[in-house]
Structures are given as C-alpha cells and as structure tokens.
C-alpha cells in the first residue's frame, strides 16, 4: 500500500531510527526520491539528533541498579516499621481511653459520705454505759442523780443549737420517788383523756 505524503512525514523519525518494517521502509525511500520537502525534513532530523547526551560516567551506570534496589528495600522497610508504630499504640490508646471513661463514670456515681462533725447518732446517745449495774433497784439515790444529770447533758447535746425547747429533767431531778409516781399517774390520766 502506497504511503501518502503526510503518512511518510509521520514515520520519518521511525525511519531514521530504523524502526520501520521492510515494506514501509521501501515505501518511504520511494517517496523521498520524489519529495524534496520530506527529504529536507529527514536531513534536518538527522542533524538535530546528533546532539549527544553527556555521559554521566561508567560508575553511574554500574551502580544505579544496585542503588535503586537498595532504595526500594529501604523504603519498604521504613513503611513496615511505620505501620508497626502506627498500629501498636492504637490498642493501647483505646485501652487507656476505656479506662479513663470507666474512671469518670465511677467517680460520678460513687457517693462519698463525709461524717458531719456535729451529728450524733441518737441511738448511741440512748445507750446507757453502765455495764456494772445488774438491777436498776440497786442504784443508790446519789448514783441516780449522777445518771440523770448525764442524761440531761446528753439530751442537751441532741438538741439543735438554736433550740428554745425547755428541758424538765432538772425539775424532775428534785422530786422524790413518791412525787415521781404521782407525776406518772397524772400523765397517764392525761394520756387516756387524749390531752
């Protein structure tokens, strides 16, 4: 198949390099005999490709393959170590985050009871610390006075600081046992009445 002028122009560079198949090469040569334009262009190309590339030296050619191989190996190793550094702290960081969360949740839920220094358990105050007394009837009048005085003090400590309530323990202290019985009977009678 005969090549056109434009087609020959397209393949002149390939012809110059000797890269054309036999049939195409013959076509080009036949065209060149008839076409000054293409002949001029071929000459032009022949001239400009004479420009050599400066040789970097034999050492460069000999070392380049090994250098490339080592560079690739080094980069791959660096990438793997980067991976291991990236991945290793992740589970650690996740575990720390979970722990911190648990601590925060636990700290918010726990109620810390701080004892109020002014608080006295009334049950404690009611306990009589008289381990040596077997029978209340064995208590002498003097001992009884001391006990009631202590009771009065305990009762006072249970009262709120701004309390204006009056304690009758002082008055009862001065009553005899007969008089105390009369007071109890009177109180019982009042209770039955609903007063």
């Amino acid at each position, binding site marked *: 198949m005969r090549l056109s002028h434009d087609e020959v122009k397209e393949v002149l560079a390939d012809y110059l390099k000797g890269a054309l198949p036999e049939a195409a090469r013959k076509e080009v040569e036949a065209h060149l005999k008839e076409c000054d334009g293409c002949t001029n262009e071929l000459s032009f190309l022949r001239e400009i490709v004479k*420009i050599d590339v400066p040789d970097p030296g034999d050492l460069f*050619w000999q070392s380049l*393959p090994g250098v490339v191989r080592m560079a690739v190996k080094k980069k791959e190793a660096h990438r793997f170590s980067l991976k291991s550094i990236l991945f290793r702290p992740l589970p650690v960081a996740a575990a720390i985050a979970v722990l911190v969360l648990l601590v925060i949740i636990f700290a918010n839920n726990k109620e810390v009871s701080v004892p109020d220094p002014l608080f006295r358990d009334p049950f404690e105050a009611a306990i009589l610390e008289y381990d040596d007394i077997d029978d209340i009837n064995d208590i002498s009048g003097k001992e009884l006075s001391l006990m009631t005085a202590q009771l009065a003090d305990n009762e006072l400590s249970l009262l709120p600081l701004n309390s204006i309530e009056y304690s009758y323990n002082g008055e009862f202290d001065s009553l005899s046992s007969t008089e105390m019985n009369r007071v109890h009977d009177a109180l019982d009678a009042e209770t039955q009445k609903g007063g």
Partner: protein
Amino acid sequence: MDEDIGLVESYIAGDGEAVEKLVIKYQRQIYAVIYRMTKNIEDARDLTQKTFVRAIEGIGGFRRESSFKTWLYRIAINISLNHIKQNRREDVELVDTIMGNQAGTLSEIIENERKSYIKKSLDELPGRQRLALILRAYEGLSCSETAQAMGCTEGAVKAHYHNGVKRLREILKEKGYEIKS
C-alpha cells in the same frame, strides 16, 4: 514487552534481581530523556534514580494498559516536569561537555558550535512541542508510545511534533543556521 511483564511479575513474587534487570535495560534511555528535559547532568542522575525507585514502588499500580517502557517514560517525564517547575532558574548547562574544554580542529569547533545552537534552539520551543520532538526524534518512541508517555492523544502528538520541527527550523534560520539536505 513480554520480557518486561515477566520481570515485573518476578519482582512482585519477591525476586529482587528483577529490579536490577529492568534498570539496566532502560537506564540509558530514561537518563537521556531526563537530561534533554532538565539540561543538567546532576539533576538527570538524581531524577533517573528517583524515576526507577518510584516506578518499582508503584509497580503494584501498573495496570498493563501500556507497555512498561512507556509507563516508565511517563513517570520520568512527570518527575522532570515537577523538578523544572520547582526549580525555575536560568539554565546553567555544562556546555563544556558539548563544546569541549580543548580547542580541536576547525571542523570540530564549528560542529560543536552548531550543536550548541541546536540545543539552545530546542530550549526555545514550547514545552509540549519540545517533549514530543525529544520522544519521537531522539528517543525513538512511536507515535502511540509518545502519546501514552505524554498522556495525550496520538493526534495531539502529531501536531506537537510537526509544529516543533517547523518552529525549530525557523529558530535556527533566524540564528543563521539553515540545515539543507
């Protein structure tokens, strides 16, 4: 191309020597195209190494839609263009490698001078025209391979290439160098 695919697969399978074989096969071509773009020997050395390292690292992404060769050229071109963009400077070319440090015969001096003018005229071409000319005329890539390496259509390659040749002739003519058959 089958040989290249075989080497690629060997490397992926764990054969480190396959890397060296690929480098040996294409190192001169890649160096040449990078040098023609950057016009600096040191840059060309560094970027050639960078090209191969990047290609091997990214070999998993090589889809085999093009040949390994054009894929490699594509990487080299991109790296070179990025380098040129980052290092916009006056071209400090080691012209002594072309002109020679010693004065030779008259014909050698004239020849060297002509080469120097051609090189400088090439530098004056627009980027894509120059690249198409380098790949087609200097590197011997086919139109199809050049299109893949440049990331454009074959029609665009043809246009860039022909316009580049035409413009280069005009520039040389302006400088007083007319190449005739």
